[in-house]
């Protein structure tokens, strides 16, 4: 991002830049940057907080009025709702799921969760006006496809134009997006950190992803090994195991 800003400016275009990682911005010194103390993935602070988003946007644009640079300014406020996530109760299991499917079959467990979350996902789609997934494939089919990678003979890809690794990656991204969209729609305004904790610690899907990661790491397919190393499970979860 900082490098892009420099390249645009060299070509004669003024830039201003929102920075989430101050240390990177300090090293690369783009012409104008507003460092914001928000979580990765939320450069304008919080969803559905238009007044706050506007404040951040105006602060970033105002840097265009600077006479000389480089300018690295600090946005002085934390994102709305971020303080409550530091509280212990903010990390308590935020989502109500009914009893697990019997047995330890990952497909049955995940499909059971999907059935329970479906009405909340429907609400989420109605609210945001868009589906969470990218593949256009039904989430149950994606779950069965992903689970098949735990066995010796995975299912053929649902999209012949995608490699096995890409199809598995997109399937997992869509599954997680479905879970988080559904959980976000439930009452209680769970924060992002609580939702992540819930997904990775409490759901059968989270456990499935960890098993898939292991299966990918042991695969003969280099792309699947890369998937297992970097692209299925966040560093903070993989590193904690």
């Amino acid at each position, binding site marked *: 991002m900082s490098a892009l800003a420099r390249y645009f400016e060299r070509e004669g275009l003024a830039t201003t830049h929102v*920075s989430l*990682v101050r240390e990177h911005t300090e090293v690369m010194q783009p012409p104008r940057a507003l460092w914001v103390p928000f979580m990765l*993935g939320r450069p304008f602070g919080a969803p559905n907080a238009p007044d706050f988003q506007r404040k951040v946007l105006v602060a970033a644009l105002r840097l265009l009025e600077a006479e000389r640079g480089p300018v690295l300014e600090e946005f002085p406020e934390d994102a709305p709702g971020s303080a409550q996530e530091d509280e212990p109760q903010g990390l308590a299991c935020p989502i109500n799921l009914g009893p697990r499917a019997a047995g330890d079959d990952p497909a049955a467990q995940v499909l059971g969760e999907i059935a329970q979350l479906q009405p909340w996902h429907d609400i989420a789609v109605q609210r945001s006006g868009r589906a969470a997934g990218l593949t256009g494939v039904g989430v149950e089919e994606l779950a069965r496809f992903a689970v098949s990678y735990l066995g010796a003979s995975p299912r053929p890809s649902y999209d012949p134009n995608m490699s096995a690794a890409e199809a598995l990656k997109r399937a997992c991204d869509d599954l997680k997006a479905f879970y988080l969209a559904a959980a976000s729609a439930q009452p209680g305004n769970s924060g992002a950190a609580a939702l992540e904790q819930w997904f990775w610690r409490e759901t059968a899907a989270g456990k499935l992803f960890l098993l898939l990661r292991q299966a990918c790491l042991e695969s003969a397919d280099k792309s699947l090994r890369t998937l297992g190393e970097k692209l299925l499970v966040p560093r903070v979860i993989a590193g904690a195991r």
Partner: protein
Amino acid sequence: MADLPEPERAHLLEMAGRAPRFSDRPWVRSAPLARCRIALVTTAGLHRASDRPFSFVPGTEYRVIPGDTPAAELTMSHVSVNFDRSGFHADLNVVFPVDRLAELAQEGFIGSIAQYHYSFMGAAWPPTRFEASAKELAGLLKKDRVDAILLTPV
């Protein structure tokens, strides 16, 4: 960054250590905000749902986002799993503030909004790989009469 869990913090610090150093100080004076035509450039891997998703292997390709694209038509295919997406799913503007920008244009705080915004997936490393794409986009942005660019990460 002090709030980040240790593995993420260590990773980002390690990247800062490997980030390129530049010796020049490019600086272009901006037009007054009330006359500025603004384009957004994001590295969040955003695109219209009808566009091709970003490649599984990080590159420097970009997607074009028409300035009047409704928020509901935009989606994200960034390959990383190390940032929050729940905010984006609830409200695009937390990543790509098109609605806020439109409000500022309507109020006259900024002059106008570009015909096209642009989106990269910012996972390619090192960031110097983006130089050629930036040069190409600069030409297109000038043809769009853009005065200033707001760059937003994810």
